[in-house]
């Protein structure tokens, strides 16, 4: 599985930030417990890294700059679109 496919799979599985963070916390707890074997540890680290990438992208979406829209302008654009159609 390529990195992009893995990311898509992760995105499909965790369609919300909270679900991804919850899973990430489970993974960290499991790793901290020291009970995971080598194979499981490496699998969890791989999954964890995918989740970190996903969560970082989610945070970036609301971390760049505030975007402000006006409902009346959006409605006007919508009406304009309808008229041109």
């Amino acid at each position, binding site marked *: 599985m390529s990195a992009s496919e893995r990311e898509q799979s992760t995105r499909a599985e965790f369609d919300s*930030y*909270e679900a991804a963070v919850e899973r990430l916390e489970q993974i960290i707890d499991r790793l901290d417990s020291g009970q995971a074997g080598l194979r499981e540890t490496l699998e969890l680290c791989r999954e964890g890294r995918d989740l970190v990438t996903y969560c970082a992208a989610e945070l970036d979406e609301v*971390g760049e700059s505030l975007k402000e829209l006006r409902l009346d302008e959006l409605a006007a654009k919508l009406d304009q679109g309808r008229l041109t159609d």
Partner: protein
Amino acid sequence: MGEPLAAQRVTLPGPFPVGRYAKTLREELRKRARVQLIGEVTGLRRTAKQAYFELRDSEGAVPCTIWADELDRLGLPDGALRDGAEFVAAGGPDYFIGSQASSPAFSFRVTQLRPAGEGDLLARLQALRKQLRAEGLFELQGRLARPLLPKAIGVVTAESGAARRDLVAGLERRGWRGTLVWGFAPVQDRHAAPAIAAAIQDLAARPEVDVIVVTRGGGSLADLWAFCDETLCRTVAMLRVPVISAVGHERDSTLIDDVAAVACSTPTHAADAAVPLDVDAARDSLGRCAATLRRVGAGAVAARTPHLVSLARGPGRALQRERVGLNQKTREIRAASERGIAERLGLQRRVATVVLERALARAVGPDLERRRESLRRAAVALRAHEPERTLERGYALVEGDDGEPLTSAAEARAAGDVKLHFSDGQVGAKVKPPAADAGASEQDSQGS
């Protein structure tokens, strides 16, 4: 279908002159109990004689009139009686029977008029609250899932209000810089409630909007009354997008607070509720998670490396031991093998000798007799030279004690004791000095 005309003519009283009926109706209405009504003033207009307006709430309205002089005597502050204001009107129903110049009209003749007080509004609010709670409308929004990290937030507020600024500042403090969709609406007059409800519905219809904040600053209950509007509150309750209300201050409690998913006391608190995640803190936390994963991932192999190395060396050591053992055995086998080969070679040589001898015998067969005869002659010749043959002819062999032959008189004298070998045996003899040599030798006969 109505009754046949003939039947009506028979059963109904009259016909009465309409003017007389109108007066009778007016008298009947004026007999009704005098009451107080509370509602929002709308459609206010004044003439020299009277003021006209409607008192209205979500369920209905009554047209009201008050004589201009009575209104002036009430001494209401300027602008108090205005559209959108909540008023309590005391009076009773009346009927204007019309005139040559004006049409007949029903109205509630107001004799006392005052702005609705907190108590009046609270009583109305309490009744409405009880009703909506009984319908289960307070629980619907609370069941909606609110996203931890919304991407777009819809906001209904006044365009110029401080609430707008406070909300943005609150969101910035959370580190949230997503998309804000502003649904600006009046927040205080009679147009406020329908405009707010429309803005909320429009925002909820936008798929990118994850949560809606409805906010305005503090004020009296009358100022905030739009947020107690029954239609607005029913709209919010039935919405599928979570609504966060932040109307007025902590002490103010409007009906929209009851139906919203979350009620906050200030726009700043609304920002916290809209974005439960502290984005900056979450970014730090995520960085720590990533570091933990890197550390654990690298450590998972590194921590096991010594053991793995030890395990990896195990077979090497075992192989070395086996190699040493095998070398030893190889040497032993080689030595044994060499011995075996030598033995086999000796045997082979012996066999080969016999075979060769036999082959030689076979090869030399015709000359054998001749060679034997020659050998026999040689033996005879050799025998003729043997000392024993000389002794048989009367000679004797002189030997010293050490068995060495003495071949001169000097050796005999030097030896002293000698042995004389004759053909039939030996005797010992002692050599005398030369003067007595002639016949004085002493002989000891010794059998051989």
